[in-house]
């Protein structure tokens, strides 16, 4: 796994899509909820991330699930296998980094 960082916003978007496909606003709300309201993706950050993830084909646009977003105005996105791998890779990279930090800094506590 190369040591290329995935921008946090893109990582968070990938994570938000792991369970179910979501539209943009729902992704933002998901991130907001999971961080206890700490991380709010701005409109440009959110859609910029979506654009780049789409370009890399880590996510794809899918039809809205039945009963949701039937107005056709909202576009839903789902994680692709490549996207899932990228998220996993990033998680491994971050874990290694944290382990290293813990060893070097002598921190023992686990979150």
């Amino acid at each position, binding site marked *: 796994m190369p040591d290329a960082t995935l921008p946090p916003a893109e990582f968070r978007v990938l994570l938000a899509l792991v369970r179910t496909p979501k539209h943009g606003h729902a992704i*933002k709300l998901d991130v907001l909820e999971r961080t206890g309201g700490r991380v709010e993706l*701005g*409109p*440009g*950050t959110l859609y*910029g991330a979506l654009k780049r993830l789409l370009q890399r084909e880590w996510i794809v646009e899918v039809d809205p699930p039945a009963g949701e977003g039937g107005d056709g105005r909202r576009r839903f996105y789902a994680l692709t296998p490549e996207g899932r791998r990228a998220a996993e890779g990033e998680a491994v990279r971050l874990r290694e980094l944290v382990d290293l930090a813990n060893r070097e800094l002598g921190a023992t506590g686990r979150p």
Partner: protein
Amino acid sequence: MTFRRLYALLLYLLPAAFRRRFGREMREEAEWVLRHGGREGRAGLMVDLARTWVREWMDEAGAALRALSGGMGMGMGSFRTSLRGLVRTPGFTVAVVVTLGLGIGANTFAFGLVDAFLLRTLPYDQPDELVAIWPDQLFSREMVRSAQEELSGLQDAAGVSAALLTLQEGGDPVEVFAQEHTTNLFGLLGARPLLGRDFTPADAEAGAEPVTILTHELWTARFGADPEVLGRVIELGGEGHVRRRVIGVMPSDHAPIRGSRVEAWTPVTLDPADPDWDDSYFMTGLGRLRPGQTVAGFQPEQKAWAQRLAEGSDWFADEEVARARPVGWAELGVADRRPPLLMALAAAALILLVACANVANLVLARTIGREREFSVRAALGSGRSRAAGLVFSETLLLGLAGSLLGVGVALLLENRVAVIAPDLVPESGLDVLGRPLIVAAGLAVLTALLAGIGPALHSAGRDPAEAMSGGRGAQLSRGTRRLQSTLAAGQLGLATVGIVATLLLARSLASLAAVDPGFEAGEQLTFRVTAPAFSHPEDEDVERFFREATVALQETPGVRNAGFVSRRPMMGGLSRITAFPEGWEVAEGDRPPEVTHRLVTPGYLEAIGMRLLDGSYLGPEHDVEGAADFGVVTRTAAERFWPGESAVGKSFLAPGGVPWLTIVGVVEDVREQGPAVELLPAAYIMHRNWPWRTMFAVVEAEGGTLPIGEAEAAIRSVQAGVPVARVSTVSTFVENALRPTRLLVYLALVAGSVTLLLGALGVYGVVAYGVSRRTRELGVRAALGAGATRILRSELGRVGPILAMGGVVGVVGAWFAGRGLESTLFGVDAFEPISVGAAVLLLAAVAITAAWIPARRAARVDPVEALRSE
């Protein structure tokens, strides 16, 4: 501008593909943040947007460069090289970016104006179908009805007119600009209320409850956007009613047709059986063409209709009927604005052309200076196209930086012009960040390419060996020198055009200002008063209100004279009546003469400072019911109607030969229509004849201007809470009448000075560069005994051909500029040898000064130094 609108505008700064895909969702997202986030949310949104902007453009640029880098030889590498080079030479970079910024900014702004007035489509359904049925003519109810029934080219016709109402909603009453219109207007425009319902014909019937529809703005400002207002009866007075029920609110994006200041609408009946029916001509006739019908195709039918109307009525003048033609609604009012707009655009284009030439010159000089660098690169195997690519990538970077600065300049200009000439900027503001921005970006690229083309060809065409061996002492190639001189000459020529235009406009302004207005444009206080409908419903009440207000103002301590008038001088606005002057024979088939009139109360003529030539002013003794009313006429009226005799004691006759207006005095002509408009015969008539509800007060006080508070107190002693608006002094609004011309002078002056400055820099550059390149040659000449004067003279002589070429371009351009300005000029010829001569002389002086500085340096060259420097 609301934050939402700003945000929507700023989205245009994003790459188009990104905006198209995500723009709507981003707006919705921002909307959510605004609703949940408050103040912090706004700042956050801006920061987020700025970051996105940078990131997306970098993405975009990266992709574009990867695509380009194959063919042109200008990959990321050459951009990086260029960027480094530009940072190393900040002087050069700043000079170019500022020059381009000025040019692009001026163009962005000018295009924004043109876009706003000439290119923008009307915000209605199928706007091309909307026509002014007969724009020169006010419509009566009967005419609107007739247009609806008889004009088969129209789907529907509506009438609309302005009204000033008074709103009493907590606190003092305020003036409300309203439109009265036939009940089908919104339907015709394809507009629907946001809340409530549209008018129905029943709303305008006699006995129906008076109703009104509010603008979103008034609803928000006065009623706190409370939906409960719907169905409420509010005190909105005027036009015979005091209270009206609110039946609807229009959406915020509904643009009122004709007049953006409208705040409320009221309905007008079209039923001839209705007691409110009258035959007065007070509306603008608006129609919607049938699908597929064109304005031109509709014209014959409209003309035949106008002729039929004219046959049954003596209201219409034959020449007006002959000229009758429909006009597409989008064209209305554009004609007046076209000259200043095109002038602004021309001035901006001029600046950009000169800026372009200047940048080309700067880049050329720089390229020549880097010949050695290029040669080394070439010798090391870097292709010629790569050298050209380097120049292009450099100018492209400069162009982009310039366009960024240009947007700032455009916004600044918009601010300035909104202060100097509010009429020129639409109230909604300019959409500078929309289409104009795209134009600016296009201009930047174009400018960069144009400015880069000469230098790029130059550097691509050099033979490395020759250039390297040449070194510093080498002569410039003839082609390059010629290019440089041509550019400088072009700048000087364009500068001449700018200066000539400035001179013409300034002289025109001076002659406008020198026109005798016929009154005293002094420090008199003036303001507008509307008699409130709730306290003064009938004509008699309005008449009494202004009589009492006049006395109250006159009795205020310190007031010398005071009175009211229906329209202030210089404001324009024709109120014409047909007059039958006593003793005047109207030949068979001729139309009786027309007189423009102003309604006044006693004291107005003295207060505004009109000069009495004969008889007396109008006093309280003339403000009485009698066999005939009393009035004062202007010199033009007196001389036209009663040549060679005194007009005092003569009368205008009513049909049947009874005098209805007896002349008690003659005053000097007054420029009622503006300084440059031909004088028409005019009469000043007592207000009681047609008691207008809205009048302008003019108060002349001892020792300057009466404080507005005291005037307000006087008016409110007659009726509490009367709104007072448009407060100014007479001299101020006379100044305002000259403002459009002043703005043109300002624009031309800016354009002229900038081009002159750039032209001077160009000349300086040519000569200075020549001198520095030939230091050795000059040194040799000095060593061989050429005197300093001689060298100075020969160096100055190089300016000659440039000046001659520039002069020719300038004189020809000035001729065209004069033609273009002709309609705006007053009291000056469009092509004036004196102005042109003066401009050429000025130019010569500037060019020679610019050449003098480097030439003197050349003359002082120390031979030893010069020879050793190699």
